[in-house]
């Protein structure tokens, strides 16, 4: 182990870790919005909306995230979409994780006991009120864990944006491995920082889950 090297590259990795955190956080925000829309579309009464939701989730989950990023970033200019690497990374990752999160949200909504909706409708709640005041508050509790799993996967998946030249941790690792030929040392530094981020996300999810625990 070349500790001196690890010490020397560490500041570069800290800076890169910030980019990884930023891109993951922004993609998470976008993903949640997209997921809420897609899940509502899939649960909607209108057939065309249901179809749009189903196709989006199926296509985005059925193809590699790497290709989605490449189509957006390298193919985008051909259809008039010119994006900076960072923006393409946020949109690409967000749209991808959104498809997975949509299923987490839908799963939670469907997991709420049917009797709840039936009872609400019986005492005169409209469809929207039933969803908003009866189903969603219960489903929200159920979707914390699955969405947390998605968020952790997103942090690790953010490594993919190194391929469209966003200078985040994996990009930095690749560059330093190339220039120093010390893959183990470089991996150790990057792995340490990734694990700290992943651990922080997992702990946050734990805390949120605890906070809303039904006792």
């Amino acid at each position: 182990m070349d500790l001196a090297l690890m010490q020397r590259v560490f500041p570069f990795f800290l800076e890169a870790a910030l980019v990884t955190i930023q891109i993951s956080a922004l993609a998470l925000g976008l993903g949640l919005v997209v997921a809420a829309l897609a899940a509502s579309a899939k649960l909607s009464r209108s057939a065309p909306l249901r179809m749009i939701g189903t196709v989006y989730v199926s296509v985005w989950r059925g193809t590699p995230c790497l290709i989605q990023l490449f189509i957006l970033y390298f193919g985008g200019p051909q259809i008039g979409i010119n994006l900076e690497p960072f923006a393409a990374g946020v949109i690409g990752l967000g749209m991808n994780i959104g498809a997975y999160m949509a299923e987490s949200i839908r799963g939670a909504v469907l997991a709420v006991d049917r009797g709840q909706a039936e009872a609400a409708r019986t005492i005169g709640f409209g469809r929207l009120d039933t969803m908003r005041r009866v189903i969603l508050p219960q489903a929200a509790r159920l979707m914390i864990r699955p969405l947390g799993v998605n968020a952790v996967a997103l942090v690790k998946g953010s490594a993919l944006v190194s391929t469209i030249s966003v200078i985040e941790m994996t990009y930095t690792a690749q560059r330093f491995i190339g220039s120093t030929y010390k893959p183990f040392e470089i991996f150790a530094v990057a792995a340490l920082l990734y694990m700290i981020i992943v651990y922080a996300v997992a702990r946050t999810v734990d805390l949120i889950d605890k906070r809303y625990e039904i006792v």
Partner: protein
Amino acid sequence: MQGLDFSVVLPYSGILWMGVWWTVVLTVSSAVVSFIFGIVFAVTLLYAPKIVTYPVRSFIWLFMGTPLLLQLFLIYYGLVQIGIDIPALAAGIIGLGLHFAVYNADILRAGIVAVDPGQAEGARSIGFSRLQTLRYVVVPQAVRNTAPPIGSNMIALLKESSLVSVIGIAELVHAAQLGISETFRPFEFYLTAAALYYILNLVLEAGLRRVERKVEVSR
């Protein structure tokens, strides 16, 4: 801005099919590696002495907490550094295989624990050794019960296999990039590759559903 013209892809269909073929080879081989190592890790974690479980546990912890792409770089460049010069394809299979072995191990471990203890007791009482009990009685039942989650790991594996294009393995993404380097048409080629992945994905899902049904019937 230029118009889209998917006919530029046609002359490269041979190369793309080769890419599909290698993606399938890569996925199947890595799936086998991930399955075998998944069982080995799971059994080790449950039954081996502490001194053996400790390194395995740290390995699992390390591979679960870091991105696959980073692990591929480590394996590809790391093995060369310690004097093992293996072809990129082998590095890709090892990398993908170990990455998913870690996730399979987690599932299989839960599956083994969930097998009724009476099964192992019964096997032991009719004279099976500890190893035989595991091999012929406990693990087969665990594998059967965990088929659906392991199946979804295999679907993830198919898609994640695209990552090995960065270490220069000529699979589907790499094949598309070859076409792009000559035609400068990334949109058409990557979209075609995406469509091919989608089809592979549907085929794999259908195959896994059949396997799951079979497993259920024979129970």
